[in-house]
């Protein structure tokens, strides 16, 4: 089997790929309702799907905060240090 061919096939079928991805996302949350929890440290350990929400919020927060820092403060032209 050729890895390149498989990758190209996947890229040509992104719609199917997306559906599979959504199904997996849903599945990880659904499973969370049924697993046994032995370890209680934080209150959110008992909330099914907490880390899904937390992961999503983390991602958005990181992007928004970093982009804002870059835009208003840190970003310079590539020639900045050569001038």
């Amino acid at each position, binding site marked *: 089997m*050729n*890895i*390149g061919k498989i*990758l*190209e096939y996947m*890229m040509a079928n992104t719609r199917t790929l997306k559906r599979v*991805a959504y199904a*997996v*996302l849903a599945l*990880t*949350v659904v*499973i*969370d309702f049924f*697993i*046994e*929890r*032995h*370890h209680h*440290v*934080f209150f959110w*350990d008992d909330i099914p*799907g907490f*880390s*899904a*929400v*937390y*992961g*999503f919020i*983390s*991602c*958005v*927060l*990181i*992007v928004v*905060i*970093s*982009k804002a*820092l*870059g835009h208003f*403060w*840190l*970003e*310079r*032209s*590539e020639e*900045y*240090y050569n001038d």
Partner: protein
Amino acid sequence: MIEWLHPSVFLIFGAFLIPFFRGRVQQIYVVLLPVLALVTVMLMSPGVHGAVKFLGFELIFGRADKLSLAFAYVFSIAALIGAIYAMHVKDVTQHIAAFVYAGSSLGVTFAGDLLTLFVFWELMAFASVWLIWARRVKASIEAGYRYLLVHAVGGVVLLAGIVILSVTTGSISFDKLQGHGVASYLILIGFMLNAAVPPLHAWLTDAYPEATVTGAVFLSAFTTKTAVYALIRGYPGTEILIWLGTIMALYGVVFAVLANDIRRLLGYHIISQVGYMVAAVGMGTALAINGAVAHAFTHILYKGLLFMGAGAVIQMTGRSKLSELGGIYRYMPVTFVLYMIGGFSISAFPLFSGFVSKSMEVSAAADLHLTWIWLLLSLASAGTFLHTGLKLPYFTFLGDDCGARPTEPPRNMLVAMGIAAFLCIFIGVYPDWLYNMLPEKAEYHAYTATHVVWALQILLFTGLGFFMLVKHLGGSPMISLDTDWFYRKGAALFMQFVYRVVVPIEDWFIQVYRSVFRGNLVMGIKGLWLDKHVIDGAVNAIAAVVVRWAGVLRQVQTGQLQQYALVMVGSLLILSLYSLF
């Protein structure tokens, strides 16, 4: 009969024989050296070896316990993988620099006293800078000098700490170093600089992207992780490290969003990942220390893999910026898949090596009920996947076609990546292999249902966020300011301040001086004489002395300091050889 052999002997002394071989033989020799070092480490029995009396100090070249052996093991593997990756390189300087650098990191790992540690510590900096310079372009020459400057300053701080410690306690043994006042803090700062703890981190992201393709693979493995080793040895349970490490983990993530150069992005993620280890050292529990060692072990392998993948792209396309790359997965599919194995490993997906190591540190934070640390470290792991597992590969290999038509890199580079990728999966699937090497006794099971579901949810929903925001995440042709600004621009601004503010104030004083001394006629004549003969004379004399001594001192600094370092390194190496018999 030789009872104990220092593995660095092969790497450091062996390296200088490389120029005597040519072609195929040289390539075989280059791979043979790290193999010999690895075998030596594998056969080494625990205990204290190679103790030498030197000028009243007891130097220990070979303290082999579980902690140093675990690090030495992964350093040798990294040297071997790096050597295979660099096998095709014809520039002998790079091979020598890489092996002296790797050998010195083993020297630090096995050092039982601070003097030996210091010498190998400095040798690492002086050897590794050649891997940056060897690219032979203006940007890398300049970055190399800045790298050397920062490490020289760090080295002086470390040495000052060691000297003070030696004078106040009379001991230079390298064990727990807390509680000795100034000396402890100076040594800690020296260690933190090499671990790239902000604000002492900018040397890393400034210099690594400017190194050669193969050099950066070595650089990514040794400097920061020897510093993690030194921190574990000297400062376990130092509480401030918990917060510094957590800030570090987030700092790297924030700057990685802004990075456009692919190796700079990976460099910021070294800082982020080492942040976890530093935080774990600060926690200091058995589980946390094991976590730091395990994470350092796996990190060296997957970060090497990521740098090898990025290096392959740079070598085959001649481009290193996200804004200039894209769509090359068709031409480099094997590189892409191997890179992704590194990406999944660093992101800590179940069945990959990051999952079985990083989760130990996060669990250690939970055991200590460190709520904020736990939340922030979890947030940073979302950021890790966001950049190293999604943004970088998406805009490099997928995304819009950039027009480049590369081929796969040379076979030896793919083989090196393949070995690293195999180890990433092997450790992920069979973590006990790694756990058996860890120094502390702590029960830990990575694969519990809650862990796996927790990791999958965080990561996959980060992925969802990525694809929702993907339009805003492409690289832009910009650079971002970091603390290297202070020695790149700040110095120039300081000179401006001198010219615009200090000089006018001085002028004003001269005016006042003139009117006071010369305004009065009677006083004036005496004043003039006084001015000419006494004050000017004194000033001139002092100036002449200063100039002369500055000249002498400059000679001492440029000439003898290097000789001094060379003599010191040379004699220590000879001593280490002497200790073998």
